[in-house]
């Protein structure tokens, strides 16, 4: 609905190329994002103002992408899981666990107790193990993804808290802050990381048959098996990949707040990640997926959050605003709704 005026206006002088562009599945999430930004442009003075501070860019837009980075990572991982008809609700717990492992290994002094690289490798290693665990439960034991990952969702955070004894571990070792708080080429380094991860998966999609296989398994696992796909290892792969993304996101979050908060880090991140994936146009029923869509979905969510903060919406109204926007974005993506709308207009 929010996208409707934009499209209607554009349609009038549509050339064939433009027409196919208008039918592009990414158009709708993009339009939703554009509308949100438009609201910000009108309602929040200086929203688009980007200045240079300490040699890097500084402004609301930079904050949004920086904040959205962990969500984008989680959403990228989640996209592949969802494409195989699965779901991973342990993302938040993995975020907490990986951040905690890194922070514990680095320790609370100005110097790292474990070299940074090793600490990060251990954190990602822990995340990979989590993914392997999920993947094995789903593919080898055939547990339903939601319960299989529920186990880790509950226990993973407990494990992280066990490591820290429920305390927040504050890190003072400066190089650790670069991942989530540093700048590269004037932009947040986190963005570079996301771009790298994205490039890696996009390349894999293009240069290997991974995308085809994941879709095939997601749409019709029986047929995929009969065609000779290694369905089990594919499943394990997507869960491992999702957990690795979550682990990286966890490092980013704890690096950004310079501490590991096992109790709260990544709380409910899984829901936001799933929301981002769906807003990006990927169906939870599995099959076709869009990585770019998920990234845009994450941006929509973060822009919305940031808009709520900046507009001065009272906190008790946050949820209502968020839900209304989600409803509107969904409806704007529904062809059926648009039909109804245009029918009402012609009648």
């Amino acid at each position, binding site marked *: 609905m929010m996208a409707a005026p934009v499209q209607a206006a554009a349609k009038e002088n549509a050339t064939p190329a433009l027409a196919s562009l208008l039918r592009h599945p990414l158009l709708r999430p993009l339009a939703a994002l554009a509308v949100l930004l438009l609201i910000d442009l009108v309602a929040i003075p200086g929203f688009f103002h980007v200045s240079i501070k300490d040699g890097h860019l500084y402004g609301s837009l930079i904050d949004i992408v920086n904040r959205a980075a962990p969500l984008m990572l989680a959403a990228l991982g989640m996209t592949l899981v969802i494409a195989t008809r699965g779901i991973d609700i342990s993302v938040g717990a993995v975020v907490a666990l990986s951040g905690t492992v890194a922070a514990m290994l680095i320790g609370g002094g100005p110097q790292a107790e474990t070299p940074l690289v090793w600490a990060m490798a251990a954190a990602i290693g822990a995340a990979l193990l989590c993914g392997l665990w999920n993947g094995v439960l789903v593919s080898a034991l055939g547990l339903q993804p939601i319960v299989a990952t529920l186990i880790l969702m509950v226990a993973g955070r407990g494990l992280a808290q066990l490591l820290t004894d429920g305390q927040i571990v504050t890190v003072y070792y400066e190089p650790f802050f670069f991942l989530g708080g540093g700048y590269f080429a004037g932009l947040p380094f986190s963005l570079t990381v996301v771009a790298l991860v994205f490039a890696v998966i996009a390349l894999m999609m*293009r*240069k*290997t*048959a*991974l995308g*085809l*296989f994941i*879709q*095939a398994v997601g*749409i*019709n696992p*029986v*047929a*995929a*098996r*009969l*065609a*000779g*796909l*290694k369905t089990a290892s594919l499943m394990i792969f997507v869960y491992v990949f999702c957990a690795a993304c979550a682990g990286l996101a966890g490092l980013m979050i704890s690096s950004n707040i310079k501490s590991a908060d096992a109790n709260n880090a990544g709380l409910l991140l899984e829901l936001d990640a799933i929301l981002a994936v769906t807003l990006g146009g990927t169906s939870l029923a599995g*099959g*076709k997926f869009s990585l770019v869509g998920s990234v845009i979905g994450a941006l929509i969510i973060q822009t919305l959050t940031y808009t709520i903060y900046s507009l001065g919406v009272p906190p008790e109204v946050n949820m209502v605003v968020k839900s209304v926007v989600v409803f509107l974005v969904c409806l704007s993506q529904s062809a059926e709704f648009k039909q109804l709308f245009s029918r009402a207009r012609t009648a």
Partner: protein
Amino acid sequence: MIKAPNAAAPVLELHGISKQFPGVKALSDVGLTLYAGQIHTLMGQNGAGKSTLIKVLTGVYAPDSGTIVMEGREIRPGSTQDAQRLGISTVYQEVNLCPNLSVAENIFIGRYPRKFGMVDWGGMRAQAARLLEQLEVRIDVRAQLSSFPLAIRQMVAISRALNISARVLILDEPTSSLDEAEVQLLFRVLRKLRDQGMAILFVTHFLDQTYAISDRITVMRNGEREGEYACAELSRLALVNKMVGAPDASEHPAELVHPGAAQEPPAVLMQARGLGRKGALAPLDLDIRAGEMLGLCGLLGSGRTEAARLLFGADKADSGTLRIGERSHPFASPRDAIEAGIGFCSEDRKHEGAILELSVRENMMLALQARAGMLRAIPLHQQEALARDYVKWLGIKTADIDTPIGSLSGGNQQKVLLARWLVTKPAMLILDEPTRGIDVRAKQEIMDYVSGLCRKGMAILFISSELPEVLRCSDRLVVLRDRKACGEYQRGELDDTSVLQVIAGEAA
């Protein structure tokens, strides 16, 4: 509409129906008239628009233009439910039943027998068993539908449609996975219904069946109505010509001569000894030779599909050995089999074959890519070239090689799946009902093509419920009965009549 006084008033009339899908004009200005007490057969090549016409008629698709008149009143069914309410009962081409429900429920859901306002489970089961008995299907109606093979599911779908007391009955390729005997049973029931005054619309690709049962024939070609004919007035040759739209097409090309058959039997490619699985197939001995087409035949449920699945590793064998090349134990998974150079085209294309949302190209490349491994992606241009070739060779009617396979007609989907295995150039190919739903002309062409491959050295295990086809193509025949092999015959040892006796177990 006023008809000649001696003809009965039509029950259902379609006028000027058009339907456009993105990129495809599926129907343009099609008309159709059904009379009570007549069986009307719809013929046409794959993708001619038969199923689409039926879906428009029964409210699945809304037509772009045209009217539907039932007993003098214009109707606009908006859903299958509407159509049913109006007295139109349909069996669609792909079996549309709920795999998770019991057989009995699948027949009765939507119109349960009730007792004290509750679903009367007992009564329902008894009735369901009785209905199926009509078609001589004796199964546990409490069992889940998904535990039965396609043919049984097809029978259940037919029973469901028969049980709706309707004015019009529509059957879209109901016989595509049935054996001769079942077809005869079905026809007996259809004739009875016709005599009771029902209007029946029937779609099939089998000329024999068309001539056995129809009163009238409508031929469709490329989304248009070619013409309507009284069955008795249209020769087979004329019918085929009208379908394909070529005046010179001959019905039966020369009988296939298979040079391999006459010579020394070539080397054994695959050897199964005592291969079996409890409850599915008794231990089976089988030799399959390179360059030989081995037919498996038997009645419905005789275990042909099970045998194929065991050979391919789709189900795990619990006894016996399988020798192929160096290896001597049965395959643990289809992947194993594929690595050993075997392909398997399943009979159940909807559940075990097609990946509906993926494109024709992707569906075709899947097995080849799986064998190449994930990391070695086949370059796109190569994929496209291959896909285009096969689309051309197999005459697949599709807007584009990037069209989702789900929007192809049933027969064309089948061709794509066949292509999926052909592109892998396997040493041995297991074909379970490969020509299901494929039109007469294409069927012949495909079997010729496959025979050609066989001549070049591919081993083929061929399963079909069409006995003439099996007899014509196979070099050697293995007959299964009650999930047990019960005889092996060389080409020419059996003919159309003796084979029936063998598979039915009446001493040959």
